[in-house]
């Protein structure tokens, strides 16, 4: 049902972009979620015991890490890698709400790698930082509604969530993201897990 898929894709885009009345920003990202994982025909195979990551292959992980590093690079302040943003993205894309986002994100990452090979004769992770910036810029500036622009938005949103979200999701290591933007409001209790809490209590 390609038409239906397109409608869902539009609703994800609407979400990601929408600025809401609540300063808090009720801007979900996520995907169609039927809460029965058995029906999840798109789920990746169970990661084998030797695999380091939950969602990404080592090559994909290297690409995502390189991209995050260009979005929020380390300088006199810590950057995305210091906050473990790739760890966050790798884990978050396993949640049931993000099932469709996972597919879109992986497809976009593969497209970025292909473009890199075409333009520079090497994969994105091996490209130089200026080449990586060129590639990310091309994706960012692609026309509204294209897969490239959509992927860059996903990358930005997931990077910011990983940089500035609750540390229980795997990112914002040592609260370096909060220190960067000066967010000093109190945080959740010590043994809190955001993902567990959502699935135990929320989910409409």
């Amino acid at each position, binding site marked *: 049902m390609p038409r239906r898929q397109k409608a869902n894709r539009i609703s994800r885009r609407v979400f990601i972009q929408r600025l809401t009345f609540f300063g808090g920003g009720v*801007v979900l990202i996520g995907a169609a979620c039927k809460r029965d994982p058995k029906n999840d025909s798109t789920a990746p195979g169970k990661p084998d015991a030797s695999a380091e990551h939950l969602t990404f292959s080592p090559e994909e992980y290297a690409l995502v890490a390189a991209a995050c590093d260009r*979005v929020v690079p380390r300088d006199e302040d810590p950057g995305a890698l210091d906050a473990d943003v790739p760890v966050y993205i790798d884990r978050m894309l396993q949640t049931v709400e993000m099932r469709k986002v996972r597919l879109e994100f992986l497809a976009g990452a593969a497209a970025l790698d292909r473009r890199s090979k075409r333009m520079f004769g090497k994969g994105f992770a091996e490209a130089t930082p200026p080449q990586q910036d060129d590639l990310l810029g091309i994706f960012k500036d692609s026309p509204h509604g294209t897969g490239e622009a959509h992927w860059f938005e996903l990358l930005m949103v997931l990077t910011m969530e990983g940089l500035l979200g609750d540390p229980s999701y795997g990112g914002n290591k040592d609260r370096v993201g909060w220190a960067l933007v000066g967010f000093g409001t109190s945080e959740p209790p010590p043994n809190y897990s955001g993902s567990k809490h959502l699935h135990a209590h929320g989910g409409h």
Partner: protein
Amino acid sequence: MALQLGRAGFKVVVLEKGAHYKKDDFIHDEILNSRRNFFMPLPWDEPHLVRRGEKEKYQRTNTAWTANCVGGGTVHMSGYFYRLKPVDFRLRSQLGAIPGANIADWPIHYEDLAPYYDLAEEELGVSGAMVPHPFAEPRKKPYPLPPLKEHPIANEVDAACRALGYHPLPTARGIISEAYRGRAGCAYCALCGSYGCEVDAKSGTNSSLIPAAIATGNVEIRARCMARMIEVDTTGKAKSVVYLDADGVAQEQPAKVIVVSCTAVESARLLLNSSSSRFPRGLANNNGLVGRNLVFSSFGESRATFRLKKRGQSWPWLSDPAPFVQRSLQDFYLMPDNRHGFRKGGTLGFMFTHPNPIFASIRIAGAGKSGIFGKALKDRLREYRDSKILQFEIYGEFLPTAGTYVSVENGVKDKYGIPVAAITIDRHPIDLKMTRFLVERGEEVLTAMKPDSLERVGDAGETTILQHGTCRFGNDPASSVLDKNCRAHEVPNLYVVDGSFMPTSGGVPTTLTIAANSFRVAHALVDKMKRG
């Protein structure tokens, strides 16, 4: 409503589609609260279709959903608890006819609602200060609680307003400033709007009215129960609510009286989905007015950024973490003449921008060709760290138009298999003139404070969580859905007590008004039932 019926000895069952959260469930986690489906359903599970005008295609969104949980939107509200003013009840007679706007007087006056404002403020817990003010609505009693602590910038807002000849007033809040009826006072955590309150200081119905209702022993709350339709008997009276329980099993709850309160959009949807041979176009909708005359609240916003380092000398208090500014302007609530293209305006509320860092940073990054990343983004994030951002929001009249309404779209169903609400918006041009005028006045105030930068966020928007009008009340059954006591003209034991009854939006956030009105309706209903 449930509280007053329970107190009077009637047995009440409350069906709520979402969870019944307790205060320990409310965690300071932006991803949980603001970015996943803890409060709001996912738009592909339960969309609201939205389009601007009938020519546009619908988009699936989460627009106009409030929190799906016991307490609804009052759980994650900011709690700006203003009252309406007498003029809001008399817009048609005060302004005369406005071409293209279906405005109507209310069938009650401010004085009819005033005692219930007092009662609602007392039961919910409202903090504020009565100050003499040329635009103040009459009130007999002081607020039940003293005002919340303010950030020192409030004094600067006052000075800027006064220098311009305006009359700033403190904003009353549905947040308790000190211990009240077994609840703890505000902890000033700053994560208020978009979050549930973990100390019960926010006066959501989940913290105030609902526990009191349960304590009567007559009220049962059934969470995770999605109402599907209201059945009628052969005489046309409402008979029962058919709902899906927490396990997805269809159940039927019979009742003597059925009270609908799902927000103006969702209540209209429930009635429109409750069709029968007697009501082929939906319950209480034989005159075709259910879902019509939808009104939101006109929205505009601008932000002034003050850099902390630059201001360190002159405003050493600027970095004070106190979260509340608590200032409003109502000088443009009703204009004396039409020289600016509108008469009925609204309120400006001043506040700090919400501290949610993910939301703020994604906004800073932007998108498309103007979007930034890398060093440019990081520099902007550091600027943000060095900033205090003061903003105002507009709560303006939203004129009802023939092109703004809720319908149901039979071809699009939610995860329960129920046709979804579809919202069509066609703004009246006067609203846009009015909002821009109010935004310009707010910017005068911000500019007078000499900010390091000023940004207009919007001057033609609407706040869709403030929703009204889809079952407007009135004395004439031909032009309204409900009577003055919010009982359906066509169905003698059916009531609607969310914002649906309001034929006009008023120029303030309407949370307190909706609560006060439900106390008023409860009073009339209890009287009627006691009389038999």
